[in-house]
């Protein structure tokens, strides 16, 4: 096969088409990686990308959903917007799950969708879909470009909106005739967004209120949420917690914002959180929430959530404050700025010794537990092994479900932005493509995709990308031949009627990997794992490891739906 060298991109002085202006705008925004899929309505854009030569690394996922999950993984690890291009109609609608996922988990993603030409919008033209209508409720903002001269400004606004304040997805819908239209006058890129001015600095009065409350508190607790990642405030969080010896508990997305092995860390709280973390939230008299949105999977039944506490809530999005939990000390601010202000205004520390002792005794007495059989593998043990073989230093991505909870519980994270999971939307099929984005964002790091056998089958077509780019992503399939969390709920709440949750028919994942020229292995016993997994995880090759684990394992502890945070079941063997 003859490969033609792509011509070098030259900044043209001749009139530019809309597609050229888009490419210029992407270069302006310092975009290096694009996750996309071509199609009719974006042909002019793909032509401009081709002519742009080496300016971008375009990643051709095999399904648009793969593109956007990869972009989300990229955004989660870098903190910069992931960029996605898809064509009109089905190209755009295939992105919807990922856009909604990015919205729920506040990930900066900028999506460009092709649209049919302006003249035929609204006529049910070939591959037309109302992208604006469909994406309005699941985006931070969206645009349809109505005139070529608006395009550079819109792209600039889109990146600004996606990556500032509370991050989120922005969709830019570009009609095909805008891409092809040529304009002689280079349009202005000045923008003004009078309706969008996120408040990033805390109100000093509110900070004072909080430091006063801290001086009074006997049982304070810090709740670290995703906002700490977004604000890049992990160091400040650690300094603040240590300054006042404040116990820290995490939300699912807050894992890694504070070192998991730190003596002040009491682990993840919520539906499958640790006993100590949940009791800390239940018994505390001052709850300082930094960048968590008090999701129902964290709080359990609201009336039992932190019932005795004064609640302080630091969030860059004012609408999150008081949404679910009544808040006495609201602080609208970026997490870093708020923590800096708190560090500066350190009054007397609360005396937390007794409180710490109590929580420590909970931690000692009710640790996470599981029963380890003789030879068979259980998923909790598997996660501990993955943790130890990667030195606890890998970027871990997951889908949603049992394996996600076990990874959250047993893969103790020490550093921020290394935990890539679908929290709010709970998207199956997220983990594997997200790992590809994460690996591209952090080529030097070890990336482990912990996926379920169900979720992996939703997006496994992206194995092509591992093959194509020789990305050393390690795929660990926690294979219990079931939709584990569904099965667990059916066991617990539906009298063991396992309706459509057992996946006894599966592909041979080893052969499947091999068909993509990727190493595959099946591991069925503890001994087998100890012999073969260390090597598979340490080399620089991609690998798909089909880990057969016992199906009947359940995730514990658990707060049953509708129960309070103190009403955990399965806290002890």
């Amino acid at each position: 096969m003859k490969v033609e060298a792509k011509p070098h991109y030259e900044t043209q002085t001749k009139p530019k088409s809309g597609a050229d202006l888009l490419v210029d705008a992407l270069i302006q925004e310092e975009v290096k990686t694009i996750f996309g899929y071509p199609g009719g309505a974006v042909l002019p854009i793909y032509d401009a990308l081709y002519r742009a030569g080496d300016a971008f690394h375009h990643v051709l996922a095999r399904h648009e959903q793969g593109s956007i999950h990869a972009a989300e993984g990229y955004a989660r690890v870098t903190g910069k917007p992931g960029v996605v291009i898809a064509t009109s109609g089905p190209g755009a609608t295939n992105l919807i799950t990922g856009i909604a996922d990015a919205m729920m988990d506040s990930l900066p993603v900028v999506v460009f969708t092709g649209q049919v030409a302006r003249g035929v919008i609204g006529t049910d033209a070939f591959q037309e879909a109302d992208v604006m209508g469909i994406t309005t409720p699941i985006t931070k903002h969206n645009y349809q470009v109505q005139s070529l001269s608006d395009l550079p400004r819109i792209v600039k606004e889109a990146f600004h909106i996606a990556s500032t304040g509370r991050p989120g997805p922005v969709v830019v819908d570009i009609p095909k005739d805008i891409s092809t239209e040529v304009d002689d006058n280079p349009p202005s890129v000045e923008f003004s967004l009078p309706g969008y001015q996120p408040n990033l600095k805390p109100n000093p009065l509110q900070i004072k209120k909080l430091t006063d409350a801290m001086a009074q508190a006997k049982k304070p607790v810090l709740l670290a949420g995703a906002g700490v990642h977004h604000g890049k405030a992990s160091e400040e969080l650690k300094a603040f917690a240590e300054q006042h010896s404040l116990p820290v508990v995490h939300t699912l997305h807050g894992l890694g914002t504070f070192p998991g092995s730190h003596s002040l860390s009491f682990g993840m709280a919520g539906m499958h959180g640790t006993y100590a973390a949940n009791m800390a939230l239940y018994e505390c008299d001052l709850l300082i929430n930094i960048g968590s949105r008090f999701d129902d999977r964290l709080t359990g039944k609201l009336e039992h959530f932190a019932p005795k506490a004064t609640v302080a809530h630091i969030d860059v999005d004012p609408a999150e404050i008081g949404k679910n939990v009544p808040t006495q000390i609201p602080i609208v601010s970026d997490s870093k700025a708020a923590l800096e202000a708190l560090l500066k205004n350190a009054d007397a520390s609360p005396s937390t010794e007794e409180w710490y002792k109590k929580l420590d005794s909970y931690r000692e007495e009710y640790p996470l537990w599981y029963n380890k059989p003789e030879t068979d593998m259980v998923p909790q043990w598997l996660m501990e092994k993955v943790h130890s073989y990667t030195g606890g230093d890998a970027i871990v991505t997951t889908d949603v479900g049992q394996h996600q909870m076990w990874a959250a519980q047993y893969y103790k994270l020490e550093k921020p932005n290394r935990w890539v999971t679908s929290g709010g939307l709970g998207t199956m099929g997220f983990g594997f493509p997200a790992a590809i984005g994460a690996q591209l964002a952090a080529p030097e790091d070890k990336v482990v995709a912990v996926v379920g056998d169900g979720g992996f089958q939703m997006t496994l077509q992206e194995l092509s990308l591992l093959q194509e780019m020789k990305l050393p992503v390690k795929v660990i399939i926690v294979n219990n031949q079931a939709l584990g969390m569904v099965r667990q709920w059916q066991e617990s709440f539906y009298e063991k009627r396992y309706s459509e949750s057992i996946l006894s028919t599966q592909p041979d994942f080893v052969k499947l990997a091999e068909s993509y020229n990727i190493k595959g292995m099946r591991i069925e016993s503890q001994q087998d794992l100890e012999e073969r997994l260390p090597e598979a995880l340490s080399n620089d090759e991609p690998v798909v490891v089909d880990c057969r684990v016992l199906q009947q394992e359940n995730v514990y502890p658990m707060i049953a739906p509708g129960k309070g945070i103190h009403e955990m079941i399965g806290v002890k063997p």
Partner: protein
Amino acid sequence: MRRIVTATVQNRSGVLNRVTGLLAKRQFNIESISVGRTEAEGISKMTFVVDVEDERKLEQLTKQLNKQIDVLKVSDITDKAIVASELALIRVVSNAQIRNEIQGIIEPFRASIIDISKDSLTVQVTGKHEKIEALIDLLRPYGIKELARTGLTAFLRGQQPQVAEMKNYSILK
């Protein structure tokens, strides 16, 4: 609680859809909505009458509206001194004999007859919600053939009374 909330918005395509979609998605109950241009170019004003359960829901409503990029300002003006008006067109069955009778009914409401046909006439009335309701009730016995109403539109009076304690909703606190 019935609240009157106004939003100043940038007049861009899709902004009405954004706002109503948001209210529907978050399960807010809109009683009426009216939209129109303002004195400033490119700026429109929306007036909503909403039925919310409590203060917290109301706070969510204003905060969620404020979060929209195209929304410039949101105010709950229910407890302020305001001028508020809506308009109704009412077609009533009538003939020459009762025309005068109807004229007598609508006069105190400062309503006017804006269309007459052989067997009906159309009344136009503007004012507060309660006033319009009252007039409709009075005209109903004659037989209402058709009724069309706008939503409420409102803004603050030029001068606000000095109140010792007035609740402020601020997005910053």
